[in-house]
């Protein structure tokens, strides 16, 4: 076929369901839109308001190894993390409105930005990747190989 065609066959059926299961039990949050100057201590102070924080991992630019605007916050209990999603998500830290999301769990390496220049993948690219992943996975479930062009980076 065409050289522009890439066939995805590495997706296993179960991948997305596994992911969803992990998210429902998770005590970890991804926190985005931090200022590059926001410190671990500031994050700790804010997120402690919804419960005892087990660990904070500040996201780093892969190349420069400096903070690049996101972090992971892990709680001891799910309930505490839920309170953070309810009452800290969408409020301000360091004058910026921060965004929290469920995270499947910190693994070594995930603290490095995956964007092209070493920082975070931008929201738009992030959404595109997610959308294409969903399309691929759901169509694969119908046992059809979907043909797509390479995903665009910002």
């Amino acid at each position, binding site marked *: 076929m065409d050289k522009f065609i890439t066939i995805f066959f590495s997706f296993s059926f179960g991948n997305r369901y596994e992911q969803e299961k992990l998210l429902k039990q998770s005590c970890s949050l991804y926190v985005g839109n931090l200022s590059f100057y926001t410190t671990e*201590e500031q994050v700790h102070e804010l997120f402690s*308001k919804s419960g005892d924080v087990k660990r904070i991992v500040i996201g780093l630019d892969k190349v420069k190894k400096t903070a690049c605007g996101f972090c992971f916050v892990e709680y001891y209990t799910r309930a505490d993390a*839920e309170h953070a999603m309810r009452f800290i998500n969408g409020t301000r830290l360091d004058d910026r409105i921060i965004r929290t999301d469920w995270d499947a769990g910190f693994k070594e390496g995930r603290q490095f930005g995956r964007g092209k220049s070493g920082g975070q993948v931008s929201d738009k690219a992030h959404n595109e990747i997610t959308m294409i992943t969903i399309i691929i996975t759901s169509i694969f479930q119908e046992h059809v190989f979907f043909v797509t062009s390479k995903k665009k980076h910002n």
Partner: protein
Amino acid sequence: MSRRRHSDESDAGSQPHKRRRTSEPIEIEDRLESLICRVGEKSTSSLESNLEGLAGVLEADLPNYKSKILRILCAVARLLPEKLTVYTTLVGLLNARNYNFGGEFVEAMIRQLKETLKSNLYSEAVYLVRFLSDLVNCHVIAAPSMVAMFENFVSVTQEEDIPQVRSDWYVYVVLSSLPWIGKELYEKKDVEMDRLLNQIEGYLKRRQKTHVPMLQVWTAEKPHPQEEYLDCLWAQVQKLKKDRWQERHILRPYIAFDSVLCEALQHNLPPFTPPAHSDDAVYPMPHVVFRMFDYTDAPEGPVMPGSHSVERFVIEENLHCIIKSHWRERKTCAAQLLSYPGKNKIPLNYHIVEVIFGELFQLPSPPHIDVMYTALLIELCKLQPGSLPQVLAQATEMMYMRLDTMNTTCIDRLINWFSHHLSNFQFRWSWDDWADCLTQDIEKPKPKFVKEVLDKCMRLSYHQRIVDIVPPSFSALIPADPVCSYKYGEEADSSLPGLAMATTVGNAIKNRASNEEILIVLKDVPNPNQDDDDDGGDGFNPLKIEVFLQTLLHLAAKSSSHSFSALAKFHEVLKTLTDSDEGKLHILRVLYEFWRNHPQMISVLVDKLVRTQIVDCAAVANWIFSPEMAHDFTRFYVWEILHSTIRKMNKHVQKIQKELDEAKVKLEKQHNKKQRDSGDEEDMEKNSEDEEGQLEEQIERLQEKVESAQSEQKNLFLVIFQRFIMLLTEHLVRCETSGVDINTTWYKNCIERLQQIFLMHHVIIQQYMGTLENLLFTAELDHHILAVYQQFCALQL
């Protein structure tokens, strides 16, 4: 029943809604639920026509969906109390159309009431009783039978040997229904009602009120007395009675349907005996009514109803109910609060702010997590940017003015709220308005409050920011620059003991020395406590601890994560150095000395040391009460550390208890399985015997673990209370002998911190009352200290 009526993507714990296959009955049931839940909300048609329409739909569906409809209606009665009269009207209309259904509904409600009382769901039971009483207004229930139920409730006050909180609740449920139903009951049965109220009055006069001082937010009577909740409600009912039960605030949709409803046949409530008291009944604790505003505070617009008006009670009840229903979803909660029916006749923003702070400051603890209230107030400011922030500023100003008589626990919460709130609004505040605090002793409540607020603001930002946001005149209150204090640095005196050793240790760490290698290096550190090194230097050596820990913390000072890694890497060394109680105490002292300008670091590192079992909880308590910490004894962060430590201890006990319970359940399952499978091959029996043996061993071990943990927990509280008693007694004796007034700023702080221990951990402390009374809170104790204990006991009498 689904509580979520709006799809809310940002909602935390939601399960993704499963797409059902199209199946008519289930779809219809969902639709019914949705129709019923949404009636009364904003609509293009009037409430009356919506109710009329809905009654028609439900009547038509009764043949096929009766039990579902019954269940939904019972649920809304219990869970949506802010829409009480909407649903009683609906039930009234249904009863008028279908008498049998009305009867079945009443029966279902009575069943539900019994269930809630058995399950200790007392606030829901109040809503159910109120619902039943309003059904009298809707001609569903006959007034005399309602009076009879109330008489049975009030007769609980004649029971003997019951906790006061039990009879309190039954009186409360009657009084709190009267705003809805007083008029009707008095019209039908005035003699009986008078007798009822006289009984209640007699009870209220003789009941104990020892608990009140412990629950008041302010100790001052002015400008608003903090009344005990039953006293306040009684005054409100008295006033209502004097006004001949004329009540104009409650929305009563059933009035529009009077011609239809008065044709309906009424049902009699079956005789209802309150379930007997049992030892596992947990009645609601008494509370004090929080008031901060009156009619003089809202400058323009509608007047705030008086503190003893029944309108005030109803408004506050309804606002509390809205928060209770919607607290998890802050945007919905804010919207619901602001669309309170009848809002044009009251200064709604003031009521909302008062109710929210009332909950936040509630003692022993707020109904919901503190941070929820911050988030809710921010949402309210967003929705009403032209009016609510001003009310909030006014409230803050008022609370600042009254700090001198505010309970320390409440001041803590105010500090947390205010600093967090400011951090969402660029820390904008008219600090100059509070310049009066600058002339006061820095330990007085007002300057102390400002100082602690600035501390917390700095934690959410950074030092220079704080310097920038306050006027220069406030410099004495600005927190210290949070840098570490390394004693073995370049400026150190060359004669400082351990200086050279610190360099050696530092180099060893940088060269990735192992724990054993570090311990070998440290062997050379002399012990200032001993003249001769006879035990090979393995005993408590404070200099070793200082040299090692100071150096380690200095190398890892970049961030808390660096410090955590350092503590983890050299866990073995630290454990060895702190083998004794003195070692544990000293490590905390060294930590404090190093990070004394950065209380947040002290907090997180103490937390880590406890969790990794380098120090135990009792060591933290002893450290906090030690003479070295006297200087910081009244600082907020110290108490945050202590309460966090107590909570860790409590969670630890709970965790092991849970493991034990789970093992016991497993063993029981094994037994049952064995009985079922008996008669099988020998092999299987032998295996299950082995398993059982292992389980029994495990249970024995866990039992020991639980006992040892509980003993540690009890010991922790004993240490804390003992230290408080020593400190306070010392102060009281000193004041007495020198003829000085005991009520210094320090004393107020200290005694309220003692109270705070009781209040914040009352459930656990209840278990150890016997020991506490026998060992510590005896009759010989100074009555000032004993009073705190007695007030605590009175909370559950």
